[in-house]
């Protein structure tokens, strides 16, 4: 196998972004992919910083970032790289026909599948919730047989957020698909088909109209192309808003497909089902990665390696027993406050960050792992995304933001 300039390990948001940016730097890139990443879970919106240290809503992500502690990945990535990364991401998805709205200056709001509001930074237009703030009537559309989207619950919570002076109506449409429970993906396919679209439109048209806003689950087509969304907005003559909800997330998959399409255009080699298992190290540098393929182990040589294996959720880092952390590919040092009194908050939905969610690889400003005295462990290995220590992506709403911006910085290094 011919040697690459950069090998990227992991195919989540961070891995795909790192691959794209590296290729634009003129590098020969190989991406080792394994599993699905969190795309099918994470709704494909880019949170940068939703809440500050005290749990207060951040109105302007750029100001919020300024105030995070020094141990936070954003401080290591630096504002310049963050701004460039956002620009880069927006251009990439726009070029693919799936433009995202939002900027670092002003927080965006979306409507969740239970009717609460969620702050986020960049998102597809179809998910932008603030467009319905001025509507006189909110029409909430459920789907018969679709779990996890309950119109009454959406109505109850949305009315609390947007005020009781609006009118809230609920309807439930029938897909005429029988015999099984449906997921948003099934319904999105139905809406995308000519027949399904007609049936869908016929059932909601009477309720929609000027001045109203129609709230739906993530069902406006499976593709990141706005085709169904634009058509429906026109046919209904009003605002249509998608919501975030239980996996599988149609929009997460849209984003993945869009990024993979961009990767393909840049000729990046993506090796499927290649689980990185071992690093070959010479001195303080890695020369190659051994990855298990379907049939046998392959060796991937490169000058530079980017580790985007997704932390605890995706198996990049494990902790079999308390304190026994393991970064699975390079054995990099992991830091975390694994002390019984602090490791897990008594409250699940806590007003404090959860220590276990902040555990990760300790890195310096170049995003390379460092030992306890601050010395870089492996000179040509960069760590990105959920693998990083020092932030709680759930508490502060920053998951895809850290993933994108750290990947950008590592790729540029």
């Amino acid at each position, binding site marked *: 196998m011919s040697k690459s300039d950069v090998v990227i390990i992991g195919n989540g948001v961070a891995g795909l972004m790192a691959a794209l940016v590296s290729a634009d730097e003129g590098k020969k890139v190989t991406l080792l992919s394994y599993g699905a990443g969190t795309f099918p879970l994470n709704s494909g919106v880019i949170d940068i910083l939703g809440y500050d240290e005290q*749990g207060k809503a951040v109105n302007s992500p750029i100001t919020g970032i300024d105030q995070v502690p020094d141990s936070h990945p954003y401080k290591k990535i630096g504002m310049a790289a963050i701004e460039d990364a956002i620009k880069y991401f927006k251009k990439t998805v726009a070029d693919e026909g799936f433009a995202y709205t939002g900027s670092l200056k002003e927080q965006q709001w979306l409507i969740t599948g239970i009717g609460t509001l969620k702050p986020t930074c960049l998102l597809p237009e179809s998910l932008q919730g603030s467009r319905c703030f001025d509507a006189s009537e909110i029409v909430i559309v459920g789907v018969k047989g679709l779990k996890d989207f*309950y119109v009454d619950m959406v109505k109850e919570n949305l009315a609390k957020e947007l005020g009781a002076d609006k009118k809230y109506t609920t309807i439930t449409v029938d897909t005429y698909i029988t015999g099984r429970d449906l997921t948003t993906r099934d319904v999105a396919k139905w809406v995308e088909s000519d027949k399904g679209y007609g049936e869908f439109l016929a059932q909601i048209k009477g309720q929609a109209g000027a001045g109203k806003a129609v709230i739906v689950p993530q069902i406006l087509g499976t593709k990141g192309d706005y085709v169904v969304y634009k058509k429906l907005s026109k046919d209904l003559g009003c605002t249509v808003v998608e919501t975030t909800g239980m996996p599988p997330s149609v929009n997460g998959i849209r984003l993945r497909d869009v990024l993979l399409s961009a990767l393909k255009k840049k000729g990046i080699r993506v090796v499927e089902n290649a689980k990185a298992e071992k690093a070959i190290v010479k001195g303080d540098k890695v020369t190659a990665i051994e990855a298990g393929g379907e049939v046998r182990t392959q060796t991937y040589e490169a000058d530079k390696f980017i580790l985007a294996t997704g932390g605890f959720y995706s198996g990049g880092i494990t902790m079999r027993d308390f304190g026994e952390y393991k970064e699975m590919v390079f054995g990099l040092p992991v830091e975390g406050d694994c002390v019984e009194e602090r490791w897990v908050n008594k409250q699940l939905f806590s007003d404090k960050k959860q220590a276990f969610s902040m555990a990760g690889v300790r890195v310096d400003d170049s995003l390379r792992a460092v030992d306890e005295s601050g010395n870089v462990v492996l000179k040509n290995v960069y760590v990105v995304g959920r693998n990083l220590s020092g932030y709680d992506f759930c508490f502060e*709403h920053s998951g895809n933001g850290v993933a994108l911006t750290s990947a950008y910085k590592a790729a540029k290094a």
Partner: protein
Amino acid sequence: MVKDKATVVVVGGGATGVGILRDLSMRGIDALLIEKLDMVNGASSRYHGLLHSGARYAVKDQEAAKECIKENTILRRIGKSCVEATTGMFVQVEGDDPDFVDPWLKGCAESGISTRELSKEEALRLEPNLSRKLKVAYEVPDGAIDGFRMSWQNLQSAARYGGRYKTYTELIKVNIENATVKSITVRDNVTKEEYDIECEILVNAAGPWAGKVAELAGLECNVSPSKGTLIAFNQRITNHVVNRLRKPSNGDIFVPHGSITILGTSSITIPDPEDTSTSWEEVEELMKTGVGVFEHLRDYRILRVFAGSRPLYVPKGAEGGRNASRGFVTIDHEKEDGLKGMMTICGGKFTTYRLMAEKFCDVLAPKLHNTAKCRTAEEDLVPEVSEAEKKAARQYFPSYGVNLAATRLGVEKFGDVVKTLKEQPETREVLCECENVTMAEIQRIAAEPTSHCVADVRRRTRLGMGTCQGNYCAIRSAAVANKLFKNKFEGCSDSLSDMKNFLQARWKGITPVMAGKTLREAEMTRGMYELLFNVNGGRRG
């Protein structure tokens, strides 16, 4: 204000209390049971669920061993759908004391507990996950018992004889005149209303809280709550109950329940029975002992950790903890303390709850000039759903939930649920995939007057008790059930808060084991509820 009246009021909705309610009702005595929270709030669900054969007590306490084997046989008969007749195994591994075997065999024989020696090969064939360091194995008639279901079926049985019960009704005061109990004051913990109930006899069956209840009547009753910690694994590691064949100590027993296995337990004397906290150290101690019997124990996913306290009665000057007697006492406070109209029952085991009730009621009934004989061993707790009914139901049930639902629900409710499934096909949606619970069942249970929050529905349906630990069904059940509750429990006033509380209760069980695969699950839960649903609310600040 007096709002209710009963000849006997039983305090405590655990196995002991419900057993007494059934017994009294069957003898024709007018009785009312009150429970401060939901039924089976204490030791009777926070326990191991072993239907003892008695073999565990064969060496030290043959009296208890004999009671166990007798009751074991009775409960298998009257409570078929609550018992898993797994049979049990007593095993020794390398290092265990071989001299313990003979006295144990002798004790079993004398107590009437059958034992069968298994060759190492046979034992490993029956239970392939057992340690290769296995030395000896015996089979005994242990089983597994579902504490929630058993208790509820006792209540249903009592209700058929006129017995009544109230949940979320806490005894807060005992009203005494002339050294006689006249009435009690209770608080409705849902509506917060306080009122009086008149009674002739007050029965303190509050388990580990019995000491506190006695205090309300100005009496002293030395109950020493002894906390035990248990670990639930996400696999059926073993089909038999597996006991370590040695002097009873911590982490000795594995009990399979449906698709899970529970390992336990420990024994720590605590001042307050409300304390159900667990620590890393307790978990590790159990695990360390457990790997002796199942060497791959650390590779299984832990679902949750929980704890409960035993109602150990300690006569003055005696020892508490594991060395305290597992027997029980009946205290007639008229004789002991000169207070007429109050009795306490304390101690014992789940396995012997029926016998305890029988002996207790044999003392109580004559006080009311009632001479009826105990009949609780003669009659099944609930009628079973017939095969014909199950067969007819199959066409409306999604996937293979019929048997589970039939045993969970019992004849009457099962009939209601099947009718709904037939008439309203949209209610066939499976809201809890782990335990196969349909929307129709959840709606049926939620509409009962004793349901005030999703957790109540959980305890009656097993919703959220399986592999996903509520990750997927929390939103579904909250959205479907919360609007059906007539009165809502504190902090569960709408579907969002109810959902959060439900997940919080599950969280408590997983925090002590936040390592290994549990970390991944936790990131998933947080991602879904904090990010995708932003349950903490939007523009807060």
